[in-house]
């Protein structure tokens, strides 16, 4: 691959061409999926895929360091941060793809089309045919070449980006930090409050434990056979994600009885 990138030519190798056409198509599909997928998680995953493809393209263009950084930093860290926040925020009405601003979608499409046309037309018009390749600059080692530039010509920018990162992390902490305004209640106080209010004195009942089901979303059964919602976590209750296995257990019992009676019947018949 190194040889390919280093070649001083206006044309690339066939291998790279095939790679470009295949992965480029996938990248565009990923990008489109990013903006069209209903759920934020799907968008994030599509974007991660596109980024990995871009990392491959960096490698193909001789930017080995960037390619690796792209995978590690972008796909590995930044996209994970995105997923974190998506989980934190959860599913909201914002995910709806229904457009609320009149004419927004049309205008966006029009602008996008015009912008893309102009951009691509501009590039085509520029007549970029000659590629020098990186063979000469990479001759003393790619990483060394980068390092030399970063720590000499771009050292100030580098230092300043360092400061920027520090500031950004502090800023993120400031923005998301919430000052606790009251003392956290102790266990004793919580117990006393429970007694005072008299709503639920003992600890909440545990979820149901069955022969085949013991997940937290399975409600325990009351003496009359109906499931108790109290045994399930509040969040799951709110989402309506309680799994009712009570009837399933009875069905299982019936099936067992039938099977045993059939077998017994067979035994009697065989007698």
């Amino acid at each position, binding site marked *: 691959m190194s040889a390919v990138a280093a070649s001083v030519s*206006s044309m*690339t190798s*066939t291998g*790279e*061409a095939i790679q*470009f056409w295949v992965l480029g198509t996938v*990248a*565009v599909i990923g*990008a489109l999926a*990013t*903006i069209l997928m209903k759920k*934020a998680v799907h968008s*994030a995953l599509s974007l991660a895929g*596109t*980024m990995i493809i*871009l990392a491959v*393209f*960096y490698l193909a*263009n*001789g*930017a080995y360091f*960037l390619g690796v*950084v792209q995978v590690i*930093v*972008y796909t590995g860290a*930044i996209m994970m*941060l*995105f997923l974190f*926040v*998506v989980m*934190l*925020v959860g599913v*909201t*009405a*914002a995910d*709806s793809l229904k*457009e*609320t601003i009149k004419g*927004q979608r049309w205008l*966006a499409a029009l602008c*996008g089309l015009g912008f*893309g046309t102009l951009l*691509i037309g501009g*590039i085509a018009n520029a007549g*970029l*045919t000659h*590629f*020098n*390749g*990186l063979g000469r*600059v990479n001759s003393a080692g790619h990483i060394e070449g*980068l390092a030399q*530039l970063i720590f000499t010509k771009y050292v100030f920018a580098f230092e300043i*980006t360092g400061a*920027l*990162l520090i500031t*950004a992390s502090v800023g*993120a902490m400031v*923005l998301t930090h*919430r000052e606790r305004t009251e003392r956290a209640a102790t266990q004793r106080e919580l117990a006393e409050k429970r007694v005072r209010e008299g709503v639920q004195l003992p600890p909440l009942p545990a979820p149901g434990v069955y022969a085949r089901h013991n997940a937290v979303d399975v409600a325990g059964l009351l003496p009359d056979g109906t499931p108790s919602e109290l045994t399930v976590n509040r969040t799951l209750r709110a989402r309506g994600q309680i799994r009712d296995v009570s009837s399933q257990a009875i069905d299982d019992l019936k099936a067992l009885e039938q099977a045993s009676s059939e077998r017994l019947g067979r035994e009697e018949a065989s007698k």
Partner: protein
Amino acid sequence: MNPVNYLYLAALLFTIGGVGVLIRKNAIVLFMCVELMLNACNLAFVAFSRMHGNLDGQIIAFFTMVVAAAEVVVGLAIIVSLFRTRHSASVDDASLMKL
């Protein structure tokens, strides 16, 4: 194949990202579209680096990544605090800049 195709791809991705910014309401997805646009720029930088035969383009792409990381950190923090106060991550809900 002429390497200029990378530039076309970058332009295409950038445009898709831009349109995404305009049509999505979820602030997080909106951010992802911005990231997509940044990545498209990075691709263009890398292609230009190859075209000119020096590493400056790659350096700029590297700095772009760093700045994007910083931006994402702050941006997501803003989204989280916005969500805390408004219980919504929709950019349309924060439409206070009007009469």
